[in-house]
Structure formats: structure tokens, C-alpha cells
């Protein structure tokens, strides 16, 4: 059995419980064990790129270090957590000055300098389970469904730190859609930002951006959109004015594996 440290993050514990419960029940069905570290803290939701910001990076480093101490790779599901944690890990491995400041602060038994391997849940499906193996475990196929993958901004960029997929021509979500029997829909806005981050600052802008994403998917004939990001889900559903259904990819995964009910217990 493959064992991973699993970081849910604040939103999966509250407004995005579906993203979390379906991720857990599906992992179990796939023979992946997810262990949640005891005292994790919120990652902060957005990575602070500034070099003179240290305090805002500490919670992500603590999470990375708890995986290191457990001797396990780290798994994230929420796109924002994934982005913050991977950028932190990249910078702490490439910026000695930042690593020194962070470690002076944390006073860990052993300094943390980027040792942990971080996977997004989708990367775990691709690189650990394998999409071919996933395909064999599907009991409810999405055959005939046209599904639009929404990467948004956080899953892929900056690619030198996230190293998940080709940032301009990604395939990981489309390969996932194929593995569960669906037909992927390619559309222009799939890796452009929906404006979710600005929803509290400028709702009109969030509406404009999210409508653009939804219309782009609809024009290409999508029956539904899937995402890994709670804020995208909220923004696309609530602000865009579009009726196109939006789901977490983990919900489709659980459905395909026949463990959706288990996730809802």
C-alpha cells in the first residue's frame, strides 16, 4: 500500500467537504493510504512571492516538514494549497537566504530545505496509480459525457515550481476524463484565470472573467466542467450567470469507482 501525508487545507474542512470526502473514499478504493498530519495550519490561500516575507511562508513549510518527518510524499487536492505549498518548496530549495531565514524562525530538529516530494492528487492518479489502472477500476463509466477540464491559473503556474504538466497544453485532466470513460472538451479558456481571487474586491470583474470561462466551455459543447479548486467552483457557479454544471474532479472519480455513497456517510 502506498502511504502519503495528506493535507486537506482549510476550505476542504468547511465549504468544500465534497472535494475532501470523495478524495478519501476514492483513494481507499485505489489502495492509497492518506494520513493527515496532526496539527496542520491553513496555507494562506495565495503564495507571497516577496523575498522579504517570511512569516507568511511558515505554515506551508511546517506542512512540508511534517511529511518529511513522516518519511512520506505529500498530497494536496485544493489547487490553491497545491500552488502555495509547491512554490514554497521550490523557493526554499532554490533560495538559500530564504531557507536560512525560515529555518532560523522554525528551529526544527533538522533544517528543512525542500526534501519533501509534493503531488497534487491528479499527479498521484497519473504517476502512482496510473490512468490505465484507474480505467480498469471504473464501474460507472462517464461514456458519452462531454467534460471540460478547468485548470485555471493555480494548478499549472508558475510551471518551473509546479512542474505538473505543460502549462500551455496540459493533458493531465483530459487523461483523467478519458480514464473514467468521458470525452474531454478542449476550449480556449481552460488555463486562464476565472478571477475568483478578486470576488471580495471586485465582484463585477469576477463575474466577467468567470462568464468568459463558462461560455468558452459551452461553445465547445461541454456538458459539465470539472475543477480542483473550491474558489473556482464557487466563482464559476455563483458569479458567472451560466447554468453549465461545475463539479469537483473527485466527485466524478468517486462516482466512477462506485464509492460515491461511501464518501457521503
Amino acid at each position, binding site marked *: 500500500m502506498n502511504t502519503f501525508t495528506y493535507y486537506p487545507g482549510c476550505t476542504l474542512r468547511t*465549504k468544500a467537504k465534497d472535494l475532501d470526502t470523495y478524495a478519501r473514499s476514492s483513494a481507499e478504493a485505489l489502495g492509497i493510504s492518506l494520513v493527515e498530519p496532526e496539527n496542520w495550519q*491553513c496555507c*494562506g490561500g495565495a503564495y507571497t512571492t516577496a523575498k522579504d516575507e517570511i512569516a507568511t511562508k511558515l505554515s506551508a513549510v511546517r506542512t512540508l516538514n511534517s511529511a518529511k518527518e513522516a518519511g512520506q510524499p505529500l498530497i494536496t487536492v485544493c489547487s490553491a494549497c497545491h500552488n502555495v505549498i509547491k512554490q514554497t518548496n521550490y523557493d526554499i530549495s532554490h533560495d538559500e537566504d530564504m531557507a536560512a531565514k525560515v529555518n532560523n524562525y522554525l528551529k526544527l530538529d533538522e533544517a528543512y530545505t525542500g526534501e519533501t516530494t509534493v503531488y497534487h492528487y491528479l499527479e498521484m492518479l497519473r504517476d502512482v496509480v496510473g490512468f490505465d489502472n484507474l480505467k480498469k477500476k471504473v464501474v460507472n463509466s462517464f461514456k458519452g459525457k462531454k467534460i471540460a477540464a478547468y485548470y485555471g491559473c493555480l494548478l499549472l503556474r508558475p510551471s518551473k515550481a509546479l512542474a505538473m504538466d505543460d502549462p500551455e497544453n496540459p493533458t493531465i485532466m483530459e487523461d483523467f476524463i478519458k480514464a473514467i470513460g468521458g470525452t474531454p472538451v478542449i476550449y480556449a479558456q481552460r488555463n486562464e*484565470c476565472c478571477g475568483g*481571487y*478578486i470576488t471580495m*474586491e471586485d465582484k463585477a470583474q469576477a463575474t466577467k472573467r468567470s462568464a468568459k470561462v463558462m461560455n468558452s466551455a459551452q461553445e465547445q459543447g461541454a456538458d459539465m466542467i470539472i475543477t480542483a479548486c*473550491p474558489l473556482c467552483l464557487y466563482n464559476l*457557479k*455563483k458569479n458567472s450567470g451560466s447554468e453549465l454544471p461545475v463539479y469537483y474532479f473527485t466527485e466524478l472519480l468517486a462516482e466512477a469507482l462506485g464509492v460515491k455513497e461511501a464518501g457521503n456517510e
Partner: protein
Amino acid sequence: MNNNLKEQVLRSSGVNVLKCMRCGKCSGTCPSYDEMEYHPHQFVYMVEKGDIETLMESKSIYKCLTCFACVERCPRGVEPAKVVEAVRLATIRKQGNNHLIPDAIPEMLDEDLPQQAIVTAFRKYTK
């Protein structure tokens, strides 16, 4: 021209503004282009000139979506979003300059708004 502020923004962002060749690609790909008074390539150029205060006072610093499109697509690896963030930090670090007031938050909430939106707004707009 304010050399102290320029120094601070350069140090904080870690960006070498001299690498910019002013192709405008960052601004062309920016999803906030229409909402910004100054666009990503102008941030880079104005920091090079030391015209930081104009940027610090512009609403543009709150319009960046932190989508990293300009970072990914700049052919010179300039990373304009880091400059935008450094200027925003220079503004909100000043006493009394928080852009998000906690008292204003309850009104913005609705039952579906994810925590992620709130923690991010705090991280981006307050010190």
C-alpha cells in the same frame, strides 16, 4: 524618483527590471488588463524609472489576480507579478493602509463563499 522605494521594491520582488525588452506580452495576457490603470509591463518600466509612488497610489495594485500568467509567459523571465506584489506590499505595510477592513467582511459573505477567498483577501490586502 525615490531611490529608497525603488531599492525596496527591487529587493522585495527579486526582479531584474533591466531584463525587460518591453514587448508587452505580459500585459497582452493579463486577465485584469481592462481593470488596471497601469499594466504589468508599465509596472516593470515605472519601477525601472523609480516612479514607485504613482504605482503605490494606483488601484491597479489591488486588481492583480495573482494568476501568474505574466510570469509564465514573459519571454525574458522578468516575472512582472512579483513587482506588482512588491509595490502592493510597500503600500499596505504603511500604518493605517490596510486595504481590507475586517469590519467590512461580514457584509461580503454569502453562504457558499469558501474560506479560501477570505484568507487570500487577508493575505493580499492586509498587513
